[in-house]
């Protein structure tokens, strides 16, 4: 059995459909990424899988436990890191970890040993007596992950693990995630950072407007959309973005003013249309460059393309 099996999972908040019949499987020992823009349904999905939000429809099995019938079994098998660093401010780093250990039923010796082991692993041992409120953002984030690992869960859920961190902090968390995965931990992470998803994950599900648009390995996704090309254009005068949006051959327009990056599915037709529109508006093209799309542009193309599945 796979680590996570999700079938037709649906979530309504009142009349609002937040997650729309999504299905996917996560294999043991893989890093599975949930990539999507803000409001796509990533956090809602993770909250449903952890028991922090009720499921409207569908089913989910986590580490073999039926989420609807045995939530306690699910909770014992998973560690969860939410998108906020929500440990207890007046407690020290050590006390926060010990409290997690207590709540997962570890005995006194086990929790002390595990806390020390994790503090060392996350480079926080010298901060063990520092109150959570006095730690830096990056240290807080690492401690939150450590707290989620106190009971040696089989699966770790990470909701936007590097949100708000600087480059150094982000890289540190990425390395830790890779190391944890090497030790055998299955990781489910949500992110809106394309680079994070493509560089960390074994497989990625791209979610937009509550629906999974596509699932694949980073290589397959890149291959699948290898046809994506980007037209970089500049005009002699400013042009309204709306003038370019919706023209034939164009998937997405990025930029404002005189310079635009345009994701195209047919560069020749797109260029003809752009030139026609420029003439109509009385401006000329001053720069044109055609190149392959990078990960971010592939992502934008995927979520813009309604026919992708």
């Amino acid at each position, binding site marked *: 059995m796979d680590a996570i099996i999700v079938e037709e999972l649906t979530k309504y*908040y009142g009349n609002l459909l937040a997650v729309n019949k999504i299905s996917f499987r996560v294999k043991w020992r893989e890093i599975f990424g949930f990539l999507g823009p803000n409001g796509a349904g990533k956090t809602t999905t993770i909250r449903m899988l952890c028991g922090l939000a009720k499921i409207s429809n569908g089913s989910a099995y986590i580490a073999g436990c039926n989420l609807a019938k045995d939530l306690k079994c699910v909770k014992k098998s998973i560690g969860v890191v939410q998108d906020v660093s929500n440990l207890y401010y007046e407690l020290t780093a050590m006390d926060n970890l010990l409290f997690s250990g207590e709540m997962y039923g570890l005995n006194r010796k086990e929790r002390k040993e595990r806390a020390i082991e994790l503090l060392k692993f996350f480079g926080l041992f010298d901060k063990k007596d520092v109150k959570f409120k006095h730690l830096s953002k990056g240290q807080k984030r690492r401690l939150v992950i450590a707290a989620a690992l106190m009971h040696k869960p089989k699966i770790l859920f990470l909701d936007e693990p590097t949100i708000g961190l600087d480059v150094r902090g982000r890289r540190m968390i990425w390395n830790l995630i890779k190391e944890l995965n090497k030790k055998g931990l299955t990781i489910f992470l949500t992110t809106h950072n394309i680079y994070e998803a493509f560089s960390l994950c074994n497989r990625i599900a791209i979610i937009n407007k509550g629906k999974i648009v596509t699932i694949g390995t980073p290589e397959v996704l890149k291959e699948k959309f290898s046809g994506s090309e980007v037209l970089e254009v500049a005009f002699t005068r400013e042009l309204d973005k709306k003038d370019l949006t919706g023209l034939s051959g164009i998937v997405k327009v990025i930029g404002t003013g005189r310079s635009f990056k345009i994701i195209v599915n047919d560069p020749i037709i797109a260029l003809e249309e752009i030139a026609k529109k420029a003439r109509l508006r009385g401006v000329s093209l001053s720069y044109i460059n055609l190149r392959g799309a990078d990960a971010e542009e592939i992502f934008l193309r995927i979520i813009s393309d309604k026919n992708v599945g």
Partner: protein
Amino acid sequence: MIKMLDELKKAFFIAKKDLKEYYFKPPTISWGIMFPIVFVFAFLIREGNKLWLIPGLLTLSIFFGTTSMSAASIIFERRMESFDRLLLFPISYYGIALGKTLSSFFFGLLSSAITLATIWILFPVPIHNILLLTICIIGSALQFSSIGVLLSFAVKDPMQSMTVFNSIRFPIIFLSNMIIPIKKLPAYMLLVPLAIPVTYSVESIRYSLLGTYDIVPPTISITIIFASYLAFLYITGLLIRKNIP
């Protein structure tokens, strides 16, 4: 049985954590300890029937001590999203509710001890039945903590919690026989204090301190105190489940 012990143990861990985290939060100190002491001074320094007032003032200190702690611990955690952490642990919603009432309970005991000592210094009063007084203080602290916890989960917007809390707590001071004798109320108003659980704590504490009660006999009061504690705890568990979106 093992499952129940496990839940109890975890509830105690939550209480221990809360006490470390929220003991010195300004609202806990100001509303839970300072406010009752100010009340004690205000009422005991003036002329009048002080003996009758003392049980009410003691109850008031337990009431404000426990409910201030519940407000601080739950509302603060809900605002900071750290309450979600408790929901992620393998413990039932009733276990969480129990843990939260226990931390408020211990703080209520502390608050009542400080008030009792203050009263004792200002106005040494003989205690009618010390064992009964202990039971009544424990029962009242449990009952009030469950009221505080229930209210903290019922408040929709944590930012307005203190306004909501005080708009409920202040009328209770005047309607539960704490500082205004309910005997003085018109007959048609008598149902109001009888519908307020706090009245039974005031009555039982008054009996255990002075050996007299106004309307409700202590056996009935004590039964209602413990029954209402269990009922509020149960409703809180349901409310936590209901609050999950």
